[in-house]
């Protein structure tokens, strides 16, 4: 599903005297359907940068990132914006560390929205959103409210539900179980594991050891922007 070769990424901080920070250099990784790869390594090793380069949120500077779209492989690096948006709409589910949504929109609509964008009818999308929110133990009285006033754990589950609103064949998870209590963490773990068993390729960062042990079928350790031995 995902084929990364020779990925390099650095940041030039023009507002700070042109300081240059290297995040990734010569990074290789392949992830196939039905496996869950856990990226490990110390803070600053480049784990989040890998995920962000795959979605096109970060502009990779060298190498190749190919994502399978139907029968084709799409090169992410250098792809036009429309192509990246299509990939995100149809193929890549992404849980970021923060929920970033338009104010005032009710939770149920937020969770249904990605499925509608991927081509589901509103009724199908809403049904799926209800099932997901129930499965993630988000109290039904919150569904018609906007998540701005929710707790960290509640917002995180809304964020997760959005990434599972459509059966994306590739899931990128950045700390999906952070800020969750034990019961809700287990619900998230079960959801991710089900989706993987159904054939999704999962690439994740899990600082939470328990989640990592339960989910990962393979570990890839990063050190200084490369896959460590």
């Amino acid at each position, binding site marked *: 599903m995902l084929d990364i070769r020779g990925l390099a990424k650095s*940041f*030039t*901080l*023009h*507002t700070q005297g042109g300081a240059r920070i290297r995040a990734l250099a010569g990074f290789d990784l392949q992830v196939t359907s039905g496996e869950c790869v856990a990226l490990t390594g110390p803070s600053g090793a480049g784990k989040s940068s890998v995920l*962000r380069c795959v979605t*096109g*949120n*970060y*502009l990779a500077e060298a190498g190749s990132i190919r994502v399978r779209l139907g029968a084709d492989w799409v090169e992410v690096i250098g792809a036009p*914006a*429309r192509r*990246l*948006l299509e990939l995100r709409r149809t193929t890549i589910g992404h849980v970021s560390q923060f929920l*970033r949504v*338009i*104010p*005032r*929109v009710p939770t149920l609509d937020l969770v249904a929205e990605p499925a509608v964008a991927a081509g589901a009818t509103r009724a199908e999308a809403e049904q799926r959103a209800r099932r997901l929110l129930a499965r993630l133990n988000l109290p039904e009285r919150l569904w018609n409210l906007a998540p701005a006033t929710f707790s960290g754990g509640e917002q995180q589950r809304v964020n997760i539900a959005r990434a599972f609103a459509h059966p994306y064949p590739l899931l990128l998870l950045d700390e999906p179980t952070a800020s969750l209590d034990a019961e809700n963490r287990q619900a998230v773990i079960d959801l991710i594991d089900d989706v993987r068993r159904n054939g999704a390729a999962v690439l994740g960062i899990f600082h939470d050891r328990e989640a990592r042990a339960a989910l990962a079928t393979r570990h890839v350790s990063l050190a200084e922007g490369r896959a460590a031995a």
Partner: protein
Amino acid sequence: MSVAERTGPQPLLRVRGMSKRYGRRIGCADVDFDLYPGEVIGVVGESGSGKTTLLNCLSAQLEPSAGSLVYDTRERGPVAVFDLSEAERRRLLRTDWGLVRQNPREGLRMSVSAGANVGERLMAVGARNYGQIRGTAEHWLAQLEIAADRIDDRPGTFSGGMQQRLQIARNLVTRPRLVFMDEPTGGLDVSVQARLLDLLRRLVGDLDLACVLVTHDLGVVRLLAHRLLVMQQGHVVEQGLTDQVLDDPQHPYTQMLVSSILPV
């Protein structure tokens, strides 16, 4: 996969080398981009960066000094906008295009009712049946969350947020495919802004509108725009996916803009 799917749709608007000079001063220079159906492109930059000059050229209100602007019309396919007669351009602006100004008073007729403001654009494209015009006006006022019992009131009696929603209703009534917006949420209270953003996002999605959105508010483009153009001193210094430009800005000027946002 058909050929059309493989090659994708044609751009609705194709902009090449768009430049406007005022004597020796540069308004905007060498702007290139394609805008596709249903796509929202944000144009950001500080005051004086050339955003509004660019918008005025794109919406054919200002003749550029150089460059080409090709619009894919419904009836005739792609046409060079500045080769059209002035009457044809005006017709485009009244029908297939919309223009939402920052100050709703400039985009509305303040001396006639809300309903007439919306109905007028329909009459300009040939609608004559009073009942139908009123019905359509009611529909668009409702879409923009303006209460039906305000249809006969003049816009001067509306709040700023309502006036802006009325201006948008007036623009959407002819079902345009391309809407130009100049700081549509500027000058509104924050809570009013959020409501308008939510409405705009829904409408843009439901109507498959293409949109050129000029603003200095990076929060607004993050929520509404698919792609961004960053302008500095009349030039586009960076363009790309909105979240990429905001989260991983490449150009020194964009980095300065992004790092200048006050945290909330």
